[in-house]
């Protein structure tokens, strides 16, 4: 069962918004609704978030992402559609029922931290527990625990004004953790921070996530952040979700020109991983095979080197074409394994970290999984071609993209759509 499940979620601001829902179903566009004095902030959003997943909603300001996240915990009531938390429909809950969901299931981290300036850090972290009526001793203990998790041990007695921006957001994070809910909503949680601090916070979030295994719905307008954090990413534009997929999918198979244009500037080497670009290890020779077998394989696959693996598919070495040719000529039975060590990398290693190996040797990189088993290889050519933008339609025929005009291709800020 998905932790968060949205189907056909729509939010329209204005008088008698149901009119807008009807118009949208008849196929009207945003401009038509705006003429009626209605502002559709989110249109027909459908997605689900699995437990333990970091799901990022990515879009520019005015794309409706803030409205979307506020419908998850009922801060905004959807005009149409259904939102389910752990299978429970929260769209039609009473005020008390909604409070119960917020207290026990969904917590939230805010862009500008939203701390209580007149309360200490410890009291801020304990705030959700106080609302719930947890005893003072217990909530202090749990707040202290949460503060320690985010690296603020011993800061409980300070006031938020004595903390830097990054530390304040850690308090915001600790507050959400202290609430002890399985689902965390993060609304542009790191957007107000300096780039360096932001990176630090992202690392910390990933670290925490590895430990705590929360379900996180993360909102951002920063694509690099989305790609770093997201197990899956939903791209939003003008209130609609235009694509949902892993960062590799978004990068390599953009669903629309808009997404393609958006991801064009992404540093692919940091997003793509070894596992995403590796090729199937077809050209591999067993360590007990002879030079003739190796030579045959090389001719078949048109490669100049072969990885040598043992029975357990561990990489033991590499043989080069000229050594194999020599061995065949000399009639040797032993495979002339090179002294050179083969670089072994984890499938999750970002591309950026692979270049050092590629620069050091002509040999392909071996991508090894658990227990050192060979999962794939990355020849140097593959590494380079992974950097180029995928040959989608828009990339192949820029003229077509141009003909559509900037309205479709460019990420345009939409002031009227902003809340």
């Amino acid at each position, binding site marked *: 069962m998905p932790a968060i499940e949205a189907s056909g979620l729509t939010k329209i601001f204005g008088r008698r918004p149901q009119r807008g829902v009807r118009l949208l179903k008849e196929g009207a566009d945003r401009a038509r609704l705006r003429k009626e004095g209605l502002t559709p902030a989110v249109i027909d959003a459908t997605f689900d978030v699995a437990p333990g997943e970091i799901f990022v909603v990515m879009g520019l300001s005015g794309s409706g992402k803030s409205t979307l996240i506020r419908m998850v*915990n009922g*801060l905004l009531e959807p005009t149409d559609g259904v939102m389910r938390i752990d299978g429970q429909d929260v769209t039609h809950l009473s005020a008390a029922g909604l*409070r*119960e*969901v*917020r*207290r*026990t299931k*969904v*917590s*939230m981290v*805010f*862009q*500008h931290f*939203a*701390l*209580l*300036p*007149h309360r200490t850090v410890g009291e801020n972290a304990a*705030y*959700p527990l*106080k*609302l*719930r009526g947890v005893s003072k001793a217990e909530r202090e203990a749990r707040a202290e625990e949460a503060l320690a998790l985010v690296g603020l041990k011993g800061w409980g007695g300070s006031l938020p004004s004595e903390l830097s921006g990054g530390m304040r957001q850690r308090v915001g994070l600790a*507050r959400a953790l202290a*609430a002890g809910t399985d689902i965390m*909503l993060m609304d542009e949680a790191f957007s107000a921070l300096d780039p360096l601090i932001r990176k630090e916070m992202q690392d910390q979030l990933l670290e925490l996530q590895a430990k705590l295994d929360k379900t996180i719905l993360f909102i951002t307008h920063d694509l690099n952040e989305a790609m770093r954090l997201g197990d899956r990413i939903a791209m939003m534009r003008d209130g609609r979700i235009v694509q949902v997929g892993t960062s590799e999918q978004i990068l390599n198979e953009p669903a629309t020109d808009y997404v393609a244009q958006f991801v064009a500037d992404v540093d692919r080497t940091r997003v793509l991983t070894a596992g995403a670009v590796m090729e199937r290890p077809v050209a591999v020779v067993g360590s007990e095979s002879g030079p003739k077998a190796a030579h045959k394989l090389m001719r078949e696959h048109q490669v100049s080197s072969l990885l040598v693996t043992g029975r357990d598919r561990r990489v033991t070495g590499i043989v080069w074409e000229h050594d194999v040719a020599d061995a065949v000529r000399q009639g040797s039975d032993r495979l002339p394994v090179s002294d050179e060590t083969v670089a072994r990398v984890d499938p999750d290693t970002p591309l950026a970290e692979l270049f050092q190996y590629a620069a050091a040797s002509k040999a392909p990189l071996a991508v090894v999984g658990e227990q050192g088993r060979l999962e794939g290889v990355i020849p140097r050519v593959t590494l380079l071609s992974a950097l180029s933008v995928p040959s989608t339609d828009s990339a192949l025929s820029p003229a077509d993209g141009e003909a559509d005009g900037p309205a479709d291709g460019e990420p345009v800020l939409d002031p009227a759509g902003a809340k």
Partner: protein
Amino acid sequence: MTPMPLVIPNVPVGDVAADGVAWIKLNFDSLLDGISAMLVTLVDSISDLLLLPPPLMVVALFTLLALLVRSWGFAVFSLVGTLLIVSMGMWEPAMETLALVLIATLIALLIAIPVGILAARSDTVSAVVRPILDFMQTMPAFVYLVPVVIFFGIGVAPGVCATIIFALPPGVRLTELAIRQVDSETVEAGEAFGGTGWQILRGIQLPLGLPTIMAGVNQVIMLALSMAVVAGLVGAGGLGQVVVSSISTVNVALGFEGGLAVVILAIYLDRVTSAIGQPTGRSLVAVLRSRRDAGRAAMASI
């Protein structure tokens, strides 16, 4: 008068108002008497309390309060100012006026703050309340005096009542503003963690809006003081009476002394209430607290 081609009929607004006042007087007489008795008792007991100890002791208490909430400089001002009131022989009327102001302010705030909170939470309430406040604030103050005299007769009660009406509006307006201007994300945080409306009001909106609410309290006190003097016209006693009698006898000396006593009281009340809203950090309370924190930090570092 020049003859007019079109005769606009006279709408008897004044007569309606007079009839309304008469009707209230007729039907709610016992209620009005009760209110009157209560107001008189409240004001009298406070002014008796202020006048019970020797003046110098009360002066010392005022000075101490000034030191506690604000600074040494203000404490010196309070001491000199209140001693001057005593030396001018204005102590008794000044304390009567202070009692009237305190009671009127208290009642005004008991009405203004809840109404302000309601107005902040509901646009409808806000839309209804705003013209009423405009009416209360802009209607010339003397006009209130006539109906309240009909209701309560001559004395302290009509004075308090007119003062409440006159001083109330900024209390409502600034409370509404205070709550509306609290950072919406912080309020949202309260909601997102499952806070009830009351919890959010108590824990977030009131504390974060406090400086603005205190600015409202300050304004209420200032207006109450200015009206308390006007209330001297209906026999409310205190400095108002001093000023009124100085006008009727064209006594410049008496008028100036009474007026100066009002000014001193006004400055004192203004500084004390604004210091409570926005602490300066130089008050005795603040100094003691920062010393204690420093001591605690030193202990912690050992």
